[in-house]
Structure formats: C-alpha cells, structure tokens
C-alpha cells in the first residue's frame, strides 16, 4: 500500500459566479522516500491539490468528492482535531512566498518552536535545542542569533530555509513544497534545491514538488504529474515524461521552452490561445481548444487515462487513436476501452474510455 493514496479527488470553489472546478478528478499514489513532481500553469489546480491534502482550502473552496488516504487513514471528512495531528507533524508544507508565510511579529525561534511544542512532548528547553539543530541542518549559521531575530531581518533565501526547517522539525513523512523556489533568484534556487535533495536523502521523507518550472522537476523528481485546468494530462516517471511525452499538452509545453544549449536560433513553438476559463469548462478535453491535433471526439468527451508505456499513463485521445491504429486497443461489447498498451507490456486494463 502506498503511503498516500489520492483517488478521484474533486475540489471546487463555490463563487458567486458559479462553481470553479479547480481540481477535477486527480488520482495518484505516493510511496515513502519518493519525489513526486506536479507541474502545470497557474490555475491548473496543482496548489489546490496540495491544499486539499492538508485541508487548508480557503473559503469558498471545498472537497466535493474523492478520497485521500494517508497510511490507510481517510483524510476527506476527517475532523479538525485529527487533521491537526497530521498537519506539520506527518505532512507539512513549504509555501511559495517566504516573505508572507512567516509571521512578522514573532521571532524565528518562536515560530520554529511552536510546531515542536505542539506535536512532541519536548519541553521548552528541548524544543529550543531542536530548533537550533534544525537551523543548522538547513545551513543557517549562528542559529542562536537567528532564533532571536524577526523574519524581516533575514534575506529571502534565509527565510525559505527557515520555512524548510519549520516544515521538517517534526520529521514529517511527506513534505509538500508549493513552488518553493519561484520567488528566489537562480543562485539561491540552486542552494535550496541542493538542500532539499540532501535532506530528502538524509531523512528519507517523500516530497511532493509543485512547480511550473520543468527544469526544477527534471533535477529533483522521480515521478511527474502534468496538470491542465484541474485535470491530469499524464503521469509517469520523469524520464518517461521528458523523453516520451504522450499528451499533446505536455508535448506543446516542451516545445515552447527555449533551450539553453542550442546555438542555432530556433523559433519557439508556442501553444496558441489562452488558458481555459474554469467557470465555463467544455465537456471534452480541457486542452482541446488550444490543441493542434484536436479531433471531433476531443470536443465531446474526455479521454480516460491509458497506459502508453511502462509506468506511464496519459489521458489523450491521440494515444487511443494511436493505439487502435496499432491494434493495441481492446474494446468490450459497448465500445468501452478495456486495454491499451503501446509498449506491448500489457500490465493493466483501464476501463471507461469511449473508443472512436
């Protein structure tokens, strides 16, 4: 059993203008000690997925349906008391903006010790020692002095280190990092990524890395989920996603980023159009309006995830079409797809997609 199992999660924001389906049926498993990357543009639902796991959604957001199981314990519908035991203790989070996510009126030490005092039976003295140990671990020198300082006295990179120290103080099983380096400069980003990599090896926790930067994903993650408009486009191992992208959106994304190595000047191939309005979601594939290869079926129905390789699932009708051309799609009597396997390694059957 995986440590964290998310199944068909739907999270919506009920705004006066209507229901915004921020997360629209995402499923994934996370094993201990793995780094999972969730990549997507703004509004793709990657942060809302993280907030749903911790149930720190802001009003008017609400988990509509689905299941989130942490070590077998169902978190959807769990009480506030139960969630408190998990937040910051078993699953913790680092937010994007270290400038605003630390409390400006408390010292660094005060904020670091809060979680330790809450979740462990250490006394104040021991909590302070632990806080100092954590600051040293994340590479902050003079921890004694830093504990007495306020967040404004630290630089951006230092604040993000404090956030990481805070998140790791109770040795969580899962660390969710929500764009931890987006607000930082490249050289500071390199420091933080290096640090996270070291700590992950040392402490053996699992990380969910949320970012829009494919470079960050490539340098850190074992597995990757690509999201668009609240839905999963494809998921698989990092190598599969980067070297054999199967979903049209992922392919487009890869084409639209300039390469730093090419000496030849190649024109970028952008994804045309604008991101979708989450209030008016189409019936079919959310990416269809911007997709160059959109077919009729893309506008009417959503493709179910199909296996396109070992450890690689994709939810794109092109994969289904490709599969049926190569005789790999099997359908049952109702025209439901039973199995598709492009690599010839039939190891799972996916039900529910409608064949053309």
């Amino acid at each position, binding site marked *: 059993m995986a440590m964290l199992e998310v199944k068909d999660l739907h999270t919506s924001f009920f705004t006066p203008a209507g229901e915004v389906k921020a997360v629209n049926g995402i499923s994934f498993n996370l094993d201990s000690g793995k780094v999972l990357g969730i990549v997507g543009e703004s509004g793709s639902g990657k942060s809302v997925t993280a907030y749903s796991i911790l149930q720190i959604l802001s009003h008017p957001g609400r988990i509509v349906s689905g299941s989130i199981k942490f070590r077998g314990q169902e978190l959807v519908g769990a009480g506030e008391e139960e969630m408190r035991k998990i937040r910051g203790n078993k699953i913790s989070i680092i937010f994007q903006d270290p400038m605003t996510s630390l409390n400006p009126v408390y010292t660094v030490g005060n904020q670091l010790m809060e979680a330790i005092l809450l979740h462990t039976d250490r006394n104040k003295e021991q909590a302070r020692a632990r806080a100092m140990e954590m600051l040293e671990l994340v590479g902050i020198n003079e921890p004694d002095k830093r504990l007495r300082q306020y967040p404004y006295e630290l630089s951006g990179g230092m604040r993000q280190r404090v956030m990481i120290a805070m998140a790791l103080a109770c040795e969580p099983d899962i660390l969710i990092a929500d764009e931890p380096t987006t607000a930082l400069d490249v050289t500071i980003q390199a420091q933080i990524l290096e640090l996270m990599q070291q700590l992950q090896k040392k402490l053996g926790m699992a990380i969910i890395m949320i970012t829009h930067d494919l470079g960050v994903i*490539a*340098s850190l993650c074992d597995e990757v989920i690509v999201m668009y408009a609240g839905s999963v486009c494809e998921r698989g191992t990092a190598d599969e996603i980067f070297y054999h992208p199967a979903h049209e959106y992922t392919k487009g994304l890869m084409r*639209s980023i300039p*390469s730093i190595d090419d000496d030849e000047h190649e*024109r*970028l191939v952008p994804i*045309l159009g604008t991101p979708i309005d989450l209030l008016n979601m189409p019936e079919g594939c959310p990416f269809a309006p911007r997709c160059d290869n959109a077919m009729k079926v893309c506008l009417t129905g959503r493709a179910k995830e199909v296996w396109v390789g070992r450890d690689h699932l994709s939810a794109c009708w092109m994969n289904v079409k490709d599969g049926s051309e190569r005789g790999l799609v099997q359908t049952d009597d109702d025209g439901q797809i039973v199995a598709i396997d492009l690599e010839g390694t039939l190891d799972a059957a996916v039900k529910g997609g409608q064949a053309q």
Partner: protein
Amino acid sequence: MNEPVLVEVKNLKRYFPVNTGFLRTTPLKAVDDVSFTIGRGETLGLVGESGCGKSTVGRTILHLYKPTAGEVIFDGKTVGPGTIKEFRRRAQIVFQDPYSSLNPRLTVADIVGEPLDVNKLCKTRKERTERVRELLATVGISSEQMTRYAHEFSGGQRQRIGIARALASRPEFIVCDEPVSALDVSIQAQVVNMFEDLQSQFGLSYLFIAHDLSVVKHISSRIAVMYLGHIVEIAGANELYRHAVHPYTVSLLSAVPVPDPERARASHRIVLEGDVPSPLHMPSGCPFRTRCSRATAKCAESCPQLEEVAPGHMAACLEL
C-alpha cells in the same frame, strides 16, 4: 557587432540616497559605472539577480530616473534637456507586471492612444482610432475589444496591450523590463515570438532585461551580466554560454535547472555560498569577491575593469 550604434551608454551611474541616521544619508549605488552600446536592430540581453540594478539601468537609460553621472547617447545625440522630448518618442519601455502597468480606468483604446496624444501624432479623431486599431492588430488583439478595460484581459493579452502602447509612437528602441517573467510558460513563447516578429518588422533595438537565462539566450544577440550595480561580463549570446569566464557568470549558468532529467543527474551545480551583499555595504574591491571561490587578497584592493578576453567578449575579473 556590425550594426551602426543606436544607443551608447557611457559610465552611467545612478545612486539613491537612503536615510541611515538622523540627518544622514548614504548613497545606494544601484548602478555604478556601466557602459555598453546597442546597435540598430540588435537585442542586448541584461541578466542578473534581483537587486543587481538591471531594471535601474533600463529606467536610467530612458531618463525615468535622472542619471547621477554619465551619459546616454542616442543616435549620435546626448540625451539632455534639449533632446529629451524627441528621445522619449523614439525610446519606449514595456514593463514586467501587466497588471499594474495598465491604467484600470482607461479603455484599451485610450491606453494605446495616449502616446499618440502626448506626442501629437494624429491630427484627427478618425486617424487616431485607425492607428489604435492598427496597433492592436499588430499585437493580435481584435478591434472589437478596443472599448474594454484592462481587467477584462488575461495576463498574456495585457502584456500585448503594453507592447502596443510602446509601439504607438513608432519607437526605434524599446527597453523590455522582464516582459515575460509574469507569464505562464505556454504564453511566454507567444510573447517572445511576437517580440522577434516586431523587431524584424520595424527594425527595433531591444534592451531585454530578464532573470530567466534561457529566454535571454534565445532572444539576444549579445548578453551583459550584472552583479551589484556592475557589469561583470559581456559577450555574444552563444559565446557567453559556451565560454563564460567570470566566476559569477559560470555559477549563474550552472545554477539554471535544465529540463532534462539525465543531464540534471549528470551535471554539477556550482552552488554559491551565502547571499548577495547589501548594496549599502558594498565589499571593497571586486563586488563579487565575498562569494567567489577564486578570490584572493588582491581582489579586496581594487575593483576590476572590463577587459577584452576574446574578440567582442569582455569580463571584469582580476583572476583571469
């Protein structure tokens, strides 16, 4: 560089007074002795980390900030009281944040039309409308959307409106101050391509300021690297990425995460220790020496000047 020089920046300095005590101010040297040239139709990329002064350079060139010292020579004429009006028409800027740089109380037609009014470029109302329509069409915004307000557009579209406004006075030079940083990856490529199209269509010169090194490499013909108000290295785009010599440039390039898992596993990041020093308390000598692995006692004594290390490739480091 073969193109005739359009913009020449000579020993440009911009200091901001900062209150550091009762009746006492200390100059914050945001830009300290920066010189470079931009040719006609050329794109010069300017990279560096936040606070290194790259945006201040852009704004000081346009005289949005008064230079503390130094001069800007535009098309052979020094920019000063007599030439500023003409200069402002021929040199424009596109800002980073497409949300705060458009007036929320004006319609798109008025935002784009404002430079036309200020510079008295259209004689009749009809001519103005026609020109605004043409400008919006250039950046891919349909004329039905002319009467809308900025908030009705997405980030990418707003940036297009900002570009249309910059183009209104038919400039020859545009300072692009992080124009794609706030945009999503899929939209970023659209805007980058548009900048390239406009350049070839109107023969524009760009100063392209950004912190995303792969975007800068893509769009620029030459690149200048800044650190704490100084230019530490300047070279042709490919030359800089293949043969960077300044220790700061080398570590900056190695810190860029490459979207390729195999190479990411194989590559070795040169992680710089510590943070950028405060520009109020600049280190003596070379500004980079406090984080440099190659720094010696010599580096604390004098500030290195840009010297040619290869044709068209200059670097400011004593240890070369």
